[in-house]
């Protein structure tokens, strides 16, 4: 049979056909053709990777560390990750059996789903949330089940919401706090009832804590620290956000050894290992990067404080995001849905934001504004948005 005799739809797998294209893409295409755009749409730090990290990676190249590393990652790096997690978040993991260095946290999410989900099993996803979770669940054969968190709860998950989403087919719950796009964080006391529900229904937890370092009001409380949770939790994190290393594509996943050895099978056949250059950079980031992280966190916190206050001054209601680098203000009083708001704002005032609806249930009526951009840009963006709101309310 020649390729041309395929019907168009037969050429592609059913699972990929069922995936909707990301709503963010459309905005990216629109914004990239325009001039003079101030973007609050970027989901990554505005800092360039600290120089010592870049330098260490260059040095690794010069010294010829350019071959494959062990599948799970350079052992020294895994040891540093273990030390870092224990020191910072009191979550000890065994570098030999429980940690895999991955190509970004994204790969970590992917191999976690593929290692744990059987066809038809449900994974509960908290929305508004990162756009990749549901597609990754579907590609792994699972069924994503969304919970839309509420503005009046500060976009935190409640135990009632979780209970209501659980069915006999539920296998796992995907959590992400601090959250993209809402910036919501959950304290130990708020997580405890969630853990009880998880225990009761014997579920797995996939905890994406990529924004853990970017917690501004309280110390981040890592999910596997909760009683009886470590053995059923897969902890995902990485270097992108805290160390400003998005383009390096370097993350890691920690899980009890039976799960991590299953994940390692997928990782070794699909990735072999993460980039050696990135791994040596990351090693430097963990060994000598603390001060830079703190400097960046202070700067994000100041800009968070600024944008939340400035939004309220121009009449936009916004809960105080406890972490990440996003504000998620409500635009309900304009009467526009978030797609329309974002589109008009871009056209009229050349400010790019991401409409809340692309982040799933509960996102409409909000826009995601990343404050990881210069104070000058933030101030201009606020001015422009103030003008826009005055015109449209």
């Amino acid at each position, binding site marked *: 049979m020649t390729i041309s005799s395929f019907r168009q739809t037969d050429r592609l797998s059913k699972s990929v056909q069922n995936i909707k294209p*990301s709503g*963010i893409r459309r*905005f*990216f295409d629109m*914004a*990239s053709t325009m001039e003079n*755009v101030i*973007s609050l*749409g*970027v*989901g*990554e730090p*505005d800092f360039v990777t600290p120089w010592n990290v870049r330098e260490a990676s260059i040095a690794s190249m010069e010294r010829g560390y350019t071959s494959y590393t062990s599948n799970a990652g350079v052992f020294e790096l895994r040891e540093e990750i273990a030390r870092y997690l224990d020191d910072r978040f009191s979550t000890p993991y065994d570098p030999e059996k429980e940690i895999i260095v991955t190509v970004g946290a994204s790969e970590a999410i992917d191999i976690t789903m593929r290692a744990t989900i059987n066809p038809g099993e449900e994974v509960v996803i908290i929305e508004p949330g*990162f*756009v*990749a979770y549901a597609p990754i669940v579907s590609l792994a054969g699972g069924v994503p089940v969304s919970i839309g968190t509420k503005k009046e709860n500060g976009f935190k998950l409640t135990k009632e919401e979780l209970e209501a989403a659980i069915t006999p087919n539920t296998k796992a719950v995907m959590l992400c706090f601090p959250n*993209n796009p809402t910036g919501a964080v959950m304290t130990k006391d708020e997580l405890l009832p969630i853990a009880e529900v998880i225990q009761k229904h014997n579920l797995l937890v996939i905890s994406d804590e990529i924004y853990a370092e970017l917690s501004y009001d309280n110390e981040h409380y890592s999910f596997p620290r909760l009683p009886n949770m470590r053995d059923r939790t897969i902890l995902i994190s990485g270097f992108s956000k805290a160390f400003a290393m998005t383009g390096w594509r370097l993350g890691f996943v920690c899980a009890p050894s039976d799960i991590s050895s299953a994940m390692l099978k997928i990782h070794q056949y699909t990735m072999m290992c993460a980039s050696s250059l990135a791994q040596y950079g990351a090693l430097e980031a963990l060994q000598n990067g603390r001060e830079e992280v703190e400097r960046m966190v*202070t700067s994000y916190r*100041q*800009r968070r*404080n*600024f944008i939340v*206050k*400035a939004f309220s001054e121009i009449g936009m209601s916004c809960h105080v995001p406890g972490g990440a680098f996003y504000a998620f203000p409500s635009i309900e009083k304009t009467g526009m849905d978030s797609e329309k708001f974002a589109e008009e704002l871009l056209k009229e005032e050349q400010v*790019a934001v*991401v409409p809340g609806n692309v982040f799933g249930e509960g996102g409409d009526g909000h826009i995601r504004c990343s404050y990881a*951009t210069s*104070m000058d840009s933030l*101030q201009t963006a606020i001015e422009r948005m103030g003008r826009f709101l005055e015109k449209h309310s």
Partner: protein
Amino acid sequence: MENKKLEVLRLLEENGRMDVSTIAKMVDEKEKKVQSMIDELEEENIIVSYAAVVDWSKVNEREGVTAMIDVKVTPQRGVGFDEVAERIYRFPEVKALYLVSGAYDLSVVIDGNTMSEIANFVSEKLSALDSVISTTTHFRLKTYKHDGVVFGDEDDDDKRIVVAP
């Protein structure tokens, strides 16, 4: 010093022109309170002055030279280096003066219009001081970075894509 005051100080050190209302928002404090913190910092002479960082190499009208001079001196009983230091920093052409450890004692930064003007200053004024034993003058050829700011046309464009998840 309380944390917020320290934070205000750091913000102003980075950008002396940042206005009170912006600082107040950033440190989550009332404007009045921030203003009084700044007043205090100025009164206590912790904030000594506000100035722009200028890259004079881009200004055609100015043909100045800057030199760093290592100075060895004999400290004096009772006053140590302070007296001779004062005699040196009172010259208006002295931009900066530091007491340093190592092979010499004082590090003098001086601005002049020409090299000979600086040479004159060294031979006529600096070396003529009783306690000065020796001087070594280094002329500055190029400024790469000053006060934490990179000079020249560094490519600091935002290289990120416009919208990303």
